[in-house]
């Protein structure tokens, strides 16, 4: 077969509806498989759960990160091309409003896929945990120049103490020097020109002074996370915050989420094993061997997701085109009498 024939062969295949339908169904089946096989685990996980052969097969084909694997994306690319060509064919075949609608909705889908690919290549995302009253340089997190300060973090609770909303009062100076000041919450991100900041998480951070002989160091302990103690030993300290400590002998409990009667439950660990444990009120100290630990204070930290995504507006344009196309394509369905 010569080259000319090949080219002729590929073009009708891509524009044919049969290819499009096969692609749609094949991608649908594959996507379903991806929800059944857990994604993004270590390769040992798959050999353990699926056996040596199936596990190796899964990792070899990339079914463990299906939606990112190259051949899945090639399939999406082919679908995109097929959509564009089919849309174009419809437009040139039927110069009616229905044809325009059909072309628009196919164009919309292709625009969505292009936008998604753009995001995949150029979007940058970072997750930051910043204590109330502290700040961060965005450059340090792989984003454009910028300075972010968390002025206040607070939580609004329902009467049953389940959270109603999380608020971070932040100020941002972006890479062009423009300033933004906003009280963001879940569902209401800060939208700067190139950057969006989302309320994602939160927690308590405790400050403790650790002294060993003459050496004194201020540690910032995040709730539930063990960090090594200063010095050469293998000792670690883990702190858990109890905001409203209940002293009734029933164990370590909090009466409410509000810090009315705060305590720090400090645990000392060596190679993961608990050595000692103590409950400290602010200002109280604890001596263990050569170490003296003072619970100085506590502050909430906010977990923020920062995202620069140049493709998202294109995706939303695709959504608009798709919706408009659908409405035009099927506008007559409920007006026209049944054939």
């Amino acid at each position, binding site marked *: 077969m010569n080259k000319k024939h090949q080219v002729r062969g590929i073009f009708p295949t891509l524009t044919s*509806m049969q290819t*499009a*339908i096969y692609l*749609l*169904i094949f*991608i*649908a*089946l594959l*996507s*379903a498989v*991806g*929800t*059944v096989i857990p*994604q993004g685990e270590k390769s040992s996980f798959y050999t353990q759960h699926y056996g040596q052969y199936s596990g190796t097969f899964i990792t070899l084909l990339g079914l463990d990160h299906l*939606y990112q694997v190259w051949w899945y994306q090639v399939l999406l690319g082919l679908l995109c091309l097929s959509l564009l060509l089919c849309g174009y064919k419809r437009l040139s075949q039927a110069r009616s409003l229905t044809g325009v609608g059909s072309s628009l909705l196919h164009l919309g889908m292709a625009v969505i896929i292009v936008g*998604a690919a753009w995001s995949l290549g150029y979007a940058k*995302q970072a997750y930051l945990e910043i204590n109330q009253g502290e700040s961060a340089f965005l450059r340090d997190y792989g984003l454009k120049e910028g300075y972010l300060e968390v002025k206040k973090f607070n939580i609004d609770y*329902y009467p*049953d103490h*389940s*959270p*109603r*909303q*999380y608020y971070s009062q932040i100020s941002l100076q972006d890479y062009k020097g423009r300033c933004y000041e906003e009280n963001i*919450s*879940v*569902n*209401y*991100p800060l939208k700067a020109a190139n950057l*969006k900041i*989302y309320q*994602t998480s939160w927690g308590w951070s405790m400050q403790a002074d650790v002294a060993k002989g003459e050496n004194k160091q201020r540690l910032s302990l995040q709730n539930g996370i063990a960090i090594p103690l200063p010095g050469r030993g293998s000792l670690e300290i883990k702190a858990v915050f109890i905001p409203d400590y209940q002293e009734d002998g029933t164990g370590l409990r909090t009466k409410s989420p509000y810090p009315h009667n705060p305590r720090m439950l400090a645990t000392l660990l060596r190679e993961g094993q608990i050595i000692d444990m103590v409950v400290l009120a602010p200002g109280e100290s604890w001596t263990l061997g050569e170490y003296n630990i003072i619970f100085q204070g506590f502050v909430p930290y906010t977990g923020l*997701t920062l*995202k620069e*995504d140049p493709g*998202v507006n294109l*995706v*939303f344009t695709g*959504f608009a085109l*798709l*919706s408009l196309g*659908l*409405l035009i394509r*099927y506008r007559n*369905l*409920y007006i026209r009498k*049944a*054939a």
Partner: protein
Amino acid sequence: MENHLLNICFALFLIGIMISLYSLWWSTEGLQKLIKWIIRLALLFLTIAIIARIVETGRLPFASLYEFVLAFTWAILCFFVITRRRFYSPIFDLLSNILVVGLLLAASFLPTEARPLMPALQSNWLHIHVFTAIIAYGSFAVSFCLAGVYMFQENRATVIELRPLDQLIYRLVVLGFIFLSLVIITGAIWAEQVWGNWWTWDPKETWSLVTWLVYAAYLHARHTYNWKGRRSAVMVLIGFGLVLITLFGVSLILPGLHSYI
């Protein structure tokens, strides 16, 4: 009160099933009318039950799987009542009644307590997203029942004309497809506002996309290859099977962002 009203609905649908079973052999105009009024009465009780819940919680019943199933059942009944004015068959009555009984039964196993809205759900997008889902799923459900009627009637000597039935199924699927597209789009826009990612291949997202792709294949097969009748009806049955997997299978079995059971 909500419980009592739902029990009454359940009983009415069971009566509906019995009468429609009887009508399969001895259909009379009187029985046709009786079922019509039984279903309308059940719809009225279900509406009151939903309103009672709205009053109790101070918000629309869109926040848990249980609430969604109630709203979904309500939408099916509305579509059923509208569709039944244009098309009558005792099998249609029977299948629709069985479907809603099944849904109410499933709902009775779900946690029913009304919880306050978690921060991620506090958005107007919740209302738009779930409202479009109710319309999409409601019309797919009724198209499913009609496709069942089609399969049942096809090889029998019957008074039912199959071509208008096929056309009716198609119209319902198109309506469902338009609204399913809107469900996915509004969900994506909302997800971008909450988490900063409009698509994360969350199981619910993925299965909605799978459903959308199968209905898209149905429409393409119909427009281009003139797939009508039986083959077309089979695809509608598969499509609604996927709707049910997305609704129950994914919510109850696969963990993800939509695990608001």
